[in-house]
């Protein structure tokens, strides 16, 4: 019993600076898996609510307002509705594959998070092939989409599946090229080769003192741009949501799905969005690093930046209180007001806990990482509110004729820029 406790506590030692997977601590690996997946589910639920609210406010409407204060409980109501719905399967569908497809998509979207580094010690594990693993596993979701479209045995899903898989396969190439140019940058300032490990990539940015998006300006920025475009295409979101173009193909590959299995597709779509955003954050935006980790150093700056997470939550809590105070003073609104105020209290409490130095030190990496990912999530919503939809041939043209050559060019130029000292040396001193 004692040894078990010691085994558990050994990882909590602040001197441990590696992920539980790398430390070989199975207990904490399991804990982290559960934490990550629970956090992911909460994030998807929150994203659902935020998307509807933000999109609504962009479009001069209110969005969900009825279920809970400001519609806060709407996603939960939706989830319950989906779970209670009848699970239909078309008579002519291929039952085994129809049954498997949503699980394949969800598995692919969730497994990716095994290597996502929320902090130097906050990843389930650190893999030597981290980024390759992420790209590979997320590309498996194409299989699920193709299976779903084919197994439905219906025209619209099949066309939708063919469209979306063609789209995902083609944009994967541009995406891969952009990723490689970022991986190339990790090999600079080191004696040997670079690294594919997600944690290693962030550490390389820390060591080089610059986020890769600003490295070799504007090369890093262009690579980041290529990735940012193709990650939207990769997740089949607006303006590249042709596979689900409601005005053309009703709902694309999941037209025949309903209830629980449809909600799995939904879950997978949103967690895939979070996954690709975390790749972008890790590769170009310095992962868990706080802003200016190298230039604004010293105890004072450390203290100021360690206060940001708590302050953010306090601010959110205050926002809740403000809105609770603005609620109509009518007995019918009493429960809603109390609920909103209670939500504010919870947020404020989290904020206060985050002010505790011991907690703040351990958690601020996660905060910065999540904040950066959240910015990407906001971008996704913003795109959806602003852009019309591309046509299929224009989409393919953009992938193959614009992003792919750009990616190749950036790759070559990055390599050249990285080797420039050597090239220069040979040029002037042959």
């Amino acid at each position, binding site marked *: 019993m004692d040894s078990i406790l010691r085994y558990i506590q050994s990882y909590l030692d602040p001197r441990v600076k590696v992920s539980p997977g790398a430390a070989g601590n199975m207990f904490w690996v399991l804990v982290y898996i559960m934490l990550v997946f629970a956090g992911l589910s909460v994030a998807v639920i929150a994203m659902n609510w935020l998307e509807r609210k933000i999109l609504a406010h962009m479009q001069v409407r209110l969005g969900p307002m009825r279920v809970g204060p400001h519609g806060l409980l709407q996603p939960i109501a939706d989830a319950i509705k989906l779970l209670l719905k009848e699970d239909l399967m078309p008579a002519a569908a291929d039952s085994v594959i129809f049954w498997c497809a949503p699980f394949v998509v969800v598995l692919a979207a969730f497994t990716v998070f095994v290597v996502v580094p929320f902090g130097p010690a906050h990843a389930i594990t650190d893999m030597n092939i981290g980024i390759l693993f992420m790209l590979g596993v997320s590309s498996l979701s194409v299989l699920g989409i193709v299976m779903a479209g084919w197994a439905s045995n219906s*025209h619209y899903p099949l066309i939708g599946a063919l469209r979306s898989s063609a789209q995902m396969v083609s944009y994967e190439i541009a995406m891969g090229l952009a990723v490689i140019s970022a991986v190339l940058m990790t090999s600079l300032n080191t004696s040997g080769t670079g690294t594919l490990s997600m944690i290693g990539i962030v550490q390389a940015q820390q060591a080089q003192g610059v986020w890769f998006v600003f490295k070799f300006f504007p090369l890093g920025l262009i690579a980041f741009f290529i990735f940012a475009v193709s990650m939207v295409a990769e997740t089949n979101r607006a303006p590249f949501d042709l596979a689900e173009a409601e005005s053309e193909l009703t709902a694309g590959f999941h037209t025949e799905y309903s209830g629980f299995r449809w909600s799995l597709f939904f879950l997978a779509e949103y967690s895939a969005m979070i996954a690709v955003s975390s790749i972008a954050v890790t590769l170009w935006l310095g992962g868990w690093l706080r802003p200016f980790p190298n230039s604004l150093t010293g105890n004072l700056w450390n203290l100021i930046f360690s206060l940001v997470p708590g302050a953010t939550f306090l601010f959110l809590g205050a926002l809740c209180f403000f809105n609770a105070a603005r609620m109509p003073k009518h007995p019918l609104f009493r429960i809603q007001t109390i609920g909103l105020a209670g939500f504010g209290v919870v947020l404020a409490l989290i904020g206060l806990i985050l002010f505790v130095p011991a907690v703040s030190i351990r958690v601020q990496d996660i905060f910065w990482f999540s904040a950066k990912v959240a910015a990407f999530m906001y971008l996704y919503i913003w795109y959806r509110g602003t852009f019309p939809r591309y046509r299929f041939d224009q989409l393919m043209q953009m992938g193959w004729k614009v992003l792919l050559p750009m990616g190749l060019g950036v790759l070559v130029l990055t390599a050249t820029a990285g080797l420039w000292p050597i090239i220069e040396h040979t040029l002037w001193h042959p």
Partner: protein
Amino acid sequence: MTDQTTLPHLDLDSGEKPFLDANELVINMGPQHPATHGVLRVILRLDGEKVLGLECVIGYLHRGVEKIGEHRTYTMFNPYVDRMDYVAAVSNGLGYCETVEKLLNVEAPPRAQHVRVILTELNRIASHQLWLGTHALDIGAITPLFYTFRDREEILKIYEKYCGARLTTHAFRIGGLQYETYLGFEKEVKNFLNFFRPKIDEYEELLTTNRIWVERTKNVGVISGEDCIALGVTGPVLRASGVKWDLRKAQPYANYKNFDFEIPTGTNGDTYDRYLVRMVEMRQSVRIIEQAVDALPEGPIMAKVPKVMKPPAGEVYHSIEAPKGELGYFIVSDGSTQPYRVRVRPPSFVNLQALDKMCRGQLVADVIAVIGTLDIVLGEVDR
């Protein structure tokens, strides 16, 4: 009989081409499809994603409006015409009232004419707003829809205040107006104009220079001016193809000749030009309304019209420029209280004929865009 009822299936042994090499794939779009604006059914013949040709199947919303007209008195039929193009009900009413007035040989008094112009032009704006919202939604931009509906609401409020109805207004009567304008009508209309002018810029900001929007609409659904005339296409579609033909100028009715406005025309005849033409038309409508409100004369609102209308036997055709194109009424009178025959020339129905011509050789996604840009209302197509 048995041969008729079996479904056609892909019989590989009889030498029929299989899916992969099939030159044609027939897809049925509608009548229940989010993008066909009501109950239009389009049978598409496709080669992969390319449209080889298409056929429209209409009649799902047929209510026999013309036939009903033969069994109602002239006054009683007036509200029915509102139900044809329910998006531009006021224009329909104007056309009908003017036609019967022509038959009766009466003319509405100037004040009535001015109010008619104001309400009809407001209606043109409302119709174009609805078109813009749904068209953009079809192409994938969801936000303009909410913007246009927000602003269209203000127009509907004016209607509601004027005649109690928002959509199918029945605003005009044969010989003039039923109601005098309400107190503060001019002010409210002017307020709306001031409110609305920057809103057009807002719509344009979202779309006009949006790269994706331009790529999706430029050179899509191109139709030449000659083809338009040959097919009888009218309205903004015709003008976008470069033909300067607007009945408000060509055969001025009401008192449009007193107002100063321009007719926008396009050059390419593609979806983008049609979009631009309609945007300018909204601005021109604002201009017309402004002049009409400023010059709103005092006086009676109803001409001398007999209680029981018995127009002299004969026939009359009169057309106006509805938001969607030339809206014509052909009425044959046999001297009784009911028309012998009412025939409507609806712009949507005639414009819809151009769909096949505009879509050939384009992609499936373009068909959606072209249906949107034609601005059809199925209530009017099927009547």
